[in-house]
């Protein structure tokens, strides 16, 4: 039982963590919580299934096409739902606009793809039982993603520019950084990460239009637990959430597992409103 909790908990937790990172990546350059993050995850599964199973494309081609489309959806989100409301962030209009785009994506997928879950292909034909690829693939993807992001942010000029925008938008612009282009790039990057989440977790979650809201909710929890904008916090929060959720499934049962997850979430936020790994924001008065 413990092995089963670990295998499925880590796998689902890694998917949640990747969605959390998707939220963070979009937030970093725009200060917007875009609720399209879960839909990008859903699209990763649906597009992967469509390209590889339905159209019969090779795995690599299918993966690249999936990530390209998800990146384009990310850019579209920035143009349609984020850019128009950036000037009035304090009114939180982005909640409405990003939710509207998320609903559009979900309904369009339901109409075009169908409302029944559809199979996702075996990718590597590796492993069986609890060592099946469907359990370890999301974990490996999450690890590679976080290493790649760390490299990007710490070792590349573009990454430094991302951090500069995230730290102080106005100062970065004053230094001549192309804020708009960097924001578009970060949304494309978020699209790729969201797509990777759905693609790597496709064998667990299937290619299903209703995965979007599920990933939106459960992907948001690691962000809140780990601290907004903190990718390492999101990974730890996501993995902890996945393990706790699976343990609750085993020990409490389906309906009560969700109750347990959200109860813990509320308790943690009451104890540490800034998230477990987030810093308290200071304000000059």
């Amino acid at each position, binding site marked *: 039982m413990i092995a089963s909790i670990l295998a499925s908990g880590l796998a689902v937790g890694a998917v949640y963590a990747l969605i959390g990172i998707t939220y963070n990546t979009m937030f970093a350059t725009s200060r917007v919580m875009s609720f399209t993050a879960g839909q990008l995850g859903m699209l990763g599964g649906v597009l992967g299934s469509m390209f590889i199973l339905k159209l019969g494309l090779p795995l690599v081609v299918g993966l690249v096409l999936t990530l390209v489309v998800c990146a384009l959806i990310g850019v579209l989100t920035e143009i349609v739902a984020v850019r128009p409301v950036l000037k009035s962030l304090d009114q939180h209009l982005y909640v409405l606009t990003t939710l509207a785009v998320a609903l559009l994506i979900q309904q369009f997928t339901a109409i075009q793809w169908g409302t029944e*879950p559809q199979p996702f292909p075996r990718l590597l034909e590796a492993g069986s039982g609890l060592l099946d690829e469907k359990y370890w693939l999301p974990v490996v993807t999450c690890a590679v993603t976080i290493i790649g992001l760390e490299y990007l942010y710490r070792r590349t000029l573009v990454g430094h520019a991302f951090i500069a925008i995230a730290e102080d938008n106005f100062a970065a612009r004053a230094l001549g950084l192309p804020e708009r282009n960097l924001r578009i790039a970060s949304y494309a990057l978020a699209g790729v990460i969201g797509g990777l989440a759905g693609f790597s977790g496709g064998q667990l979650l299937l290619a*299903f239009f209703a995965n979007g809201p599920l990933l939106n909710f459960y992907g948001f929890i690691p962000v809140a637990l780990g601290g907004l904008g903190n990718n390492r916090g999101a990974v730890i929060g996501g993995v902890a959430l996945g393990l706790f959720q699976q343990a609750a499934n085993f020990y409490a049962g389906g309906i009560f597992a969700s109750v347990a997850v959200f109860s813990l979430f509320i308790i943690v936020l009451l104890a540490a409103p800034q998230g477990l790994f987030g810093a308290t924001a200071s304000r000059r008065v």
Partner: protein
Amino acid sequence: MTITRRDLALGTAAICLAAPALAQTAEPIRFGWLAAMTGPSSAPAVGFDRGVRFAAEAINAAGGVRGRRLEVLTRDTQGDPTKAVNATQEMISQLRVHAIWGPTNSGESLATTAIMARANMPNIHPCVVDSLIDARRYPNAFRIAPSNTQWDDAVRNYCLQRVNARKVAIIGDTTGYGVSAVNACVASFQREGAEVAYKANIDATQPDMTPDMLRARTAGAEAIVIWSVSTGMIARMLNTRASMGWDVPFVGHPALSSGEIGTLVERPANWEKVYAIGYRSCAYNDAGQLPERMAGLVSRMRGKVNLADTLLWWVSCGVDAVELVAKAVEATNSTAKEAIIAHWNTLAPYRGYYGDFTFTATEHNGYPVADIVMVRANTARDGAFNLAPGYT
């Protein structure tokens, strides 16, 4: 010959008097069809519609009913109760239909039943929610498919009498339907003295079904009863059963036999020992044959109606709906609402294709429970299935 003013006046009067009678004989029978033809729950209505069109064309090709054409007036409700209500009101007050077939899902029917009752509109539908049929409150409404209770009875009887399972696990999803169906099923098994070893409502999007399957096995379940339309959840449970090396039979909701499950199970063998609710009229016997009457209908539909991507019971039920209205008009020589309803109340039994329906003034659940059988879920062929083990 000269025409006097008196002749002209008499002739005009005669034409005026005769006109309504002439128009009456030419007036078509307006058959209202509330169909969720698009949207997430459209598959049944698409199947029903094929039967409706086939039956209406056959009747009209044979000269209609007492010389009157049967006109099918369809409104797409999209599975939305609000649209179903609007379409119902349009059919009653503007299209002035003589009878309504549908809606085809219970959510819509719950919204439209009272409206049709107020208009005393003859209504037949295939929706399963028990409360939709009440001959006292809704004397105009007749069901030509099983109710939830009848489904539940059939599943319980199969588990207890043919699988000989005395300890069962009853599992549904977390939708309103799943919760209510599981509760009703638990109560009925317990009334029969069987032990419900495990009961659960599972979130249909839960990626790993191992916890619930392990609990069911630990509790000693000898059969797993499923009440859910979620094919993803069912397929995950079947895959988990296989990975556990457990061969417990699955019995329950018709969704167990959905074609999507065949694409979602990891191996075709994972779909063995799965028995879904089916109907004797639409089930192949050991010789691979349908009942004679249904075989005749299928033979007539060959080349005209596609049965490969739908269920035979949906199509044949659509045929029965049209013929029930047509034969009521033929028997009573009237399209008056009261006449149609009064005629249906005397059908004992009416020999349909999908089933032999029996209606009285106090019982409008017309489908015979003995005709609800279990079928092997993975044996679909032209919309029909092989009988499950234990039937002849």
